């Protein structure tokens, strides 16, 4: 039995917004793989819940007219991994969310929940940052689009207004076209784990595959929220592909990231791993883009 004081099942997005306004103190629940655990732990004990889980209109992946990839916020991790559009345009995201927990969690957990939690270790987060995803929120006054780097305010806190629910995660065409990426989840075991550090890199190479046109890199658990490493990205923009350049890039991430010492891992280990992952993710991204490193 869970200690919840009320449970409201939304029948539509409009109804969900209405419920949000009627019950400002209620929490939103989608798949429940985080909310129910926190409720059991006593952190959300006694809270009211607004469920959006039955809103099938928020499920699935589609392509908008302008080429934007639209991932409904209730799309489960396993559906994202299996989706043909994801596999065609941004396979790295499908791979990243396939590393969440175990199969049961991936069947119930949603990308909306993964982002709205605001946790730095979310397996989708670094790839969404590295692809400059845009969060679509729907509220009483219609839709609001927020770039993902602005969506994460601080650890556990995202920019969602009292009348809003997240309705989609959007990947702009400019982010994914001619772009190849790789995500490395560094954890203490091969399954059922959270990332000690997660690194997602994507590259766009010149037509002759000799130069980096654009490189993006983002980390989870390198700071209180997922973050890009702009200093490292700048190192490679327009540069010839070479191992020296790659190593300079990987070293440069230390100028951007800010991991901390905790019982889960020391700062020194996290820094060491962050540099190593940058290099490995870059190598694999280049290989996927048809280049050599």
């Amino acid at each position, binding site marked *: 039995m*869970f200690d919840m004081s009320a449970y409201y099942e939304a029948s539509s997005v409009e109804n969900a917004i209405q419920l949000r306004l009627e019950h400002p103190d209620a929490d939103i629940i989608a798949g429940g793989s985080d909310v129910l655990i926190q409720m059991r732990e006593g952190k959300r*004990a*006694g809270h009211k819940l607004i469920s959006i889980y039955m809103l099938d209109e928020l499920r699935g992946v589609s392509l908008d007219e302008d080429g934007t990839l639209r991932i409904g916020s209730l799309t489960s991790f396993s559906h994202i991994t299996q989706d043909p559009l994801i596999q065609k345009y941004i396979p790295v995201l499908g791979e990243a969310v396939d590393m969440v927990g175990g199969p049961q969690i991936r069947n119930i957990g949603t990308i909306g929940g993964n982002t709205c939690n605001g946790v730095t270790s979310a397996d989708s987060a670094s790839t969404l940052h590295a692809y400059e995803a845009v969060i679509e929120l729907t509220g009483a006054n219609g839709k609001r689009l927020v770039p993902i780097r602005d969506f994460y305010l601080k650890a556990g806190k995202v920019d969602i207004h009292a009348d809003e629910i997240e309705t989609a995660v959007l990947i702009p065409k400019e982010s994914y076209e001619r772009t190849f990426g790789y995500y490395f989840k560094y954890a*203490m075991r091969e*399954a059922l784990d959270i990332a000690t550090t997660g690194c997602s890199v994507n590259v766009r190479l010149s037509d002759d595959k000799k130069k980096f046109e654009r490189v993006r890199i983002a980390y989870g658990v390198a700071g209180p929220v997922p973050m890009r490493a702009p200093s490292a990205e700048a190192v490679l923009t327009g540069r010839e592909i070479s191992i020296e350049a790659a190593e300079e890039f990987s070293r440069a991430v230390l100028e951007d990231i800010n991991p901390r010492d905790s019982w889960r891992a020391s700062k*020194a280990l996290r*820094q060491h*791993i962050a540099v*190593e992952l940058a290099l490995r993710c870059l190598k694999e991204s280049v290989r996927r883009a048809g280049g050599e490193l």
Partner: protein
Amino acid sequence: MSDVGKSVIRVDAYDKATGRAKYTDDLCERNALIAKVVRSTVAHGYVTSIDTSEAEKIPGVVKIVTCFDVPDIKFPTAGHPWSVEEAHQDVADRRLLNRHVRYYGDDVAAVVADNDVAADQAVRAIKVTYDEKPFVLDPLEAMKPGAPVLHKECPDNILKHTTIRLGDYQNAIKEPGLLCVDKWYTIPTVQHCHIENHIAVSHMEGDRIVIESSTQIPHIVRRTVGQALGISWGRIRIIKPYIGGGFGNKQDTLYEPLCAYLCMQVGGRTVKLDIPREDTFVSNRVRHAMKIHLVSWVRKDGTYAARKMELYSNQGGYASHGHSIAAKALGTLPQMYPCPNCEGDAYTVYTNQSAAGAMRGYGIPQAMFAMESHTEDVAERLGVDSLEFRRAHIMPVGYVDNFSKNCNYFDTYNQCFDKAVAYMDYYKKREEYKNQTGPVRKGIGIAAFWYNTAVWPIALEHSSCRMVLNQDGTIQVQVGETEIGQGADTAYAQMAAQVVGLKSYRDVHVVSTQDTDVTPFGLGAYASRQTYVCSFSITRTGGILKKKILDYAAELTRQDIENLDLIDSNIVRTTDGKVLKTLQELATEAFYSLTHSEHITAEATYQIKNNAYSFGCCCAEVEVDIPLCKAKVTKIINVHDCGKLINPALAEAQVHGGMSMGIGFALSEKLMFDPKTGRPLNNNLLDYKLSTFMDHPHLEAQFVENPEPTSPFGTKALGEPPACPVAPAIRNAILNATGVEVDELPMNPHILFRRFTEEGLINDPWRKEES
């Protein structure tokens, strides 16, 4: 036809695979009251007051008891046979609830409510104030003068100190030309992580207390509940249904006494106390963390001139199994690689963390990590092949231990090594992996293990068995030794069918549930001894039953009993092989005869005054990704000589489980406590890195079947041994791959990062700039 030695399907397979099997919670009535425990939020101190006023207002709360309410009775919890000699009785240092709290999570109060939610709310609403005292987590710190004292009866915190003195160590080390290898090995606190948390359900019938419990040791729990409540033992009835694993944690009295006490406080209504996973990690039992100091004085020819072992075992806040574990671990020193001059000291020390008790291996996984890592280190320094070194110096054939009278009858170690070598292609790989460079390196390592079955002569155990003939010629079998997932019931059925002369093990219905009101006395699942001890009681009881059946057959058929036998559930005349009657015909006649009706049953007890060694080895291959600070097991084998196999498939499964535990113990598991507060940090299955299926390669299990001469079925220990040699084998493989000796478990990225940095394999320039 005998089923013994065949991989027959386990008797509970269908029920367990389909979910029909009943566990404690399945038996609990649906309107049972729910109990929850209030736990201390300080590592050491005294409860000065408890304010329950807010909690009492919560609807659904039925009863709250605190440490100020319970009787002041101290009781022991260890799942040992009771001793009638006071000197050998387990230390009684537990109370139902504690004013003097000794670890973060200690039991200070309990709530009984109509439902989970009300109980949880009440637990959160209870305000406890403490007079906080300094605490200590490390046994070496706890032994220092001035350290916080946990139990006033034990002012130096040393629960027990035992020694081994063999020959003259001090004189022996003076021999010129000796190589001295002096090293420390560190083993962390780990937990069993059985899938079913400990749960107890209690109700009263008349003035008697009935407890269904997830336990390995129902008959022992009956005694300890009686001791804890200060009531007559016969008033207590323990029922043990199927359980979801125990691995030694449930070889202890856990929350049965508190559950029974709470039940008595609410008029005997059914009370369920289901311990959450977070509390299972902290407030059940853990494996003893140890620091082991080994000093070896070795001659150039590899023989040991003298050896020393100092072992510091972290007991945590309460005695539980206490020093038995450290004492058993210390026993490896003179035996595994015999040496004429040995000095051993084992200390079991109270600290302010979770109480340590029995866990698969009972000190031997810790001892083997130290011993077999050290053996590798000695061979390395001598410049000799470590496997040849083992072969030359390990316990020889014919060795007899003076204390237990155990004998090493066969060349088991070499036979096991040979099988492991052949499977792994050990020598070729050992050669191939020399002098590797580059970031990813491979290595292969081996470790042997020492283990002995049963507890004689420390205690005299007995096993009792009852057999009952049914109308259809099948039988029921009851023993006190428990099925805890290992397949014991199936082995009993196979052995009983053979002894009695039944056609199939399917003709034996092993009554899986132990109920102390009706089940013959037996001590339960521990020490990897159930198949061994039951092989005696089943043989004796089966012989009596068979004799009674043949007596009856002789009367029915007017044949000389000397010419009759019971074969494949038939009464056979041995002189011509003629089937005179089926057992079914005989049984029906016996039940309903108008001239001589009789219920044919048998019951007997066997006293276990034997003991057996169980030996083997593990060989592991690893791939070490140095920059990622990760070691991955790519191939692994355990080889065991557990005597003759009763059921090879079950034996293999037992080995797989132990290897899995061994891999987690080696590479990822450690229960952590905050040094500033003593608070457990990772007491959940996400942060405690139990290894998963994805962390294992194929687990190869092979056997050498030298028949154990003391057992009627030639069988001996296999329950715990598989977990014993895995960690040192992996450690030695990492050494082979990288040249780095890792002397601390778990060999996870945190420790590998530190060690690879110390040894110069990792060289982060920015860290030098910082320092």
